[in-house]
């Protein structure tokens, strides 16, 4: 079943075309990350899906309903974690969540949610006494208190320390296990890599690329980069495959025939008894691929504007 359909979505603010024909779908139970630089159209797209903004054109269906006609029963099924913390500073964590739980017909247990986001020790603390990371965890709690089948997470771990981020990731993974559909925006590529089944990269209001984090932009079939250092006095020309030397003295081999070339190198190393120090073999990371996609899109937009 498809949870979200976005087809040729368009939105402008005056002369600025924030979203220009964006299309993608999200299946039920799937976690999809919307990636893109600031101004790419992520937040506008998200706010249209959440029912906060109206669109200028295109078709949008979220849980079978056009969000511009969002009603109470639709909102019962949708959880939203906004970018910034927005809660009454004089209420406690438990009061804030009890208040919100009262809006829903079948909310989660308040104390369970507090426990789930790791705020048990702060349950009776007022919001204005929480640290930035704790407030962000409260935001996540706020989004899931209604027990939604679809959750929007807008940069959910911004400002988290590494340990809190891992905790938040585990929480999202747990929600996925329970069948919650999740739309995520993030600037952290490791977060998209860890959580998303699929990513949609936006640039200048358009979809630049879609795919799984492992295959985005063909990164799973991209050339393998092998890197190692040779002991002093060993001539790189004696290697069985052509290599270049970088400014740190490392040998670099870029190959499309990875098994054959890796085998040739390691066999040569064993035969010659010459170590390949610090040997690593990598393909472009999600971040490398993402940056290459958005840089390319940005360059295209600039040249298009000039021509």
């Amino acid at each position, binding site marked *: 079943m498809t949870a979200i359909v976005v087809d040729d979505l368009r939105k402008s603010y005056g002369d600025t075309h924030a979203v220009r024909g964006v299309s993608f779908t999200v299946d039920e139970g799937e976690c999809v990350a919307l990636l893109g630089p600031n101004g790419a159209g992520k937040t506008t797209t998200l706010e249209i899906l959440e029912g*906060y903004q109206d669109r200028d054109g295109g078709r949008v269906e979220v849980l079978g309903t056009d969000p511009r006609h969002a009603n109470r029963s639709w*909102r019962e099924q949708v959880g939203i974690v906004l970018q910034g913390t*927005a809660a009454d500073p004089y209420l406690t964590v438990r009061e804030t969540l009890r208040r919100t739980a009262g809006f829903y017909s079948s909310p989660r247990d308040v104390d369970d949610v507090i426990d789930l986001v790791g705020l048990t020790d702060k349950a009776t603390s007022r919001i204005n006494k929480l640290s930035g990371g704790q407030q962000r965890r409260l935001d996540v709690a*706020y989004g899931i208190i*209604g027990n939604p089948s679809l959750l929007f997470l807008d940069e959910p771990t911004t400002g988290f320390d590494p340990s809190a981020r891992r905790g938040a990731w585990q929480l999202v993974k747990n929600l996925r296990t329970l069948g919650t559909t999740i739309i995520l925006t993030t600037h952290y590529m490791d977060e998209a890599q860890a959580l998303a089944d699929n990513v949609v990269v936006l640039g200048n209001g358009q979809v630049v690329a879609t795919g799984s984090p492992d295959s985005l932009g063909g990164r799973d079939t991209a050339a393998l980069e092998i890197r190692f250092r040779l002991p002093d006095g060993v001539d790189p020309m004696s290697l069985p495959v052509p290599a270049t030397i970088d400014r740190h003295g490392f040998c670099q081999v870029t190959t499309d025939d990875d098994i054959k070339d890796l085998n040739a190198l390691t066999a040569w190393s064993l035969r010659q008894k010459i170590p390949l120090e610090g040997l690593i073999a990598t393909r472009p990371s999600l971040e490398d691929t993402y940056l290459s996609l958005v840089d390319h899109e940005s360059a295209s937009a600039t040249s298009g504007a000039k021509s």
Partner: protein
Amino acid sequence: MTDLALVGSQIRYEQKSYWRNPLAAGFTFMFPLVLFVILVGTTRGATDATALGAGVHVAQYLAPSMLSYAVMSVCLMSVSMSLVRQREAGVLKRLRGTPAPAWSIIGGIIGSAVIVATTVSLVAIVFAVSVYGISFPAKDILPTAVTIALASVAFCALGVAVSTLIPNVDSGPAIVNVPFFVLVFISGTWYPITGTMAHIAAWLPLRPFIVALYYHGAFSPLNSGSAWAWHQLGSLLLWGIGATVFAVRHFQWTPKKG
């Protein structure tokens, strides 16, 4: 939870939040009383006796006018500024993303302000009667309560309407304070007014409230008849309806861009 119970719950949480902010709560309660005491002390004997009536204690006039000031301060100023703060901080946006009906959220804010306004009024009346011995007939309690309740709701509606005109938190005090204090002065809050100013103020929302309480109502030393000031109540009702229509048309849940 039924919608009505939801409003009750919202009011309860708004009240908790209000009383936990001692500065705001203290200012709302103490400032009108302090102002009342100072004005009684400084204007006693200096006020034109003919404006009040011979032998009338100045506190007899200042009690209802300060009460009106306090109600307008709580309902118009506090509600408008609170809504702007909550809108710009994203609190309203977040609430709008839940299944809670819009009217229950706004109803909670208004309901809480009406409770505070009613409490401030009660404190002001008890203070004026016990400290200055002003006259307040028991038979006029009901019309006084209805007048205060109607004025509170009307000023809350005006507060919601005014909040739609304020683009951000920084510009809020300037936009609210100027018309607020102009209204306070020309409506005869500090001293009795007559003539053209009184005629102009009669068309504005504060003057009918003061007139309903003092000239026709329970605080009047001259009026021994009914304390129901129907004309002024009608005027407050019209202001409330007009403000509600304006607010419904222009209310914004998400932060303004400007």
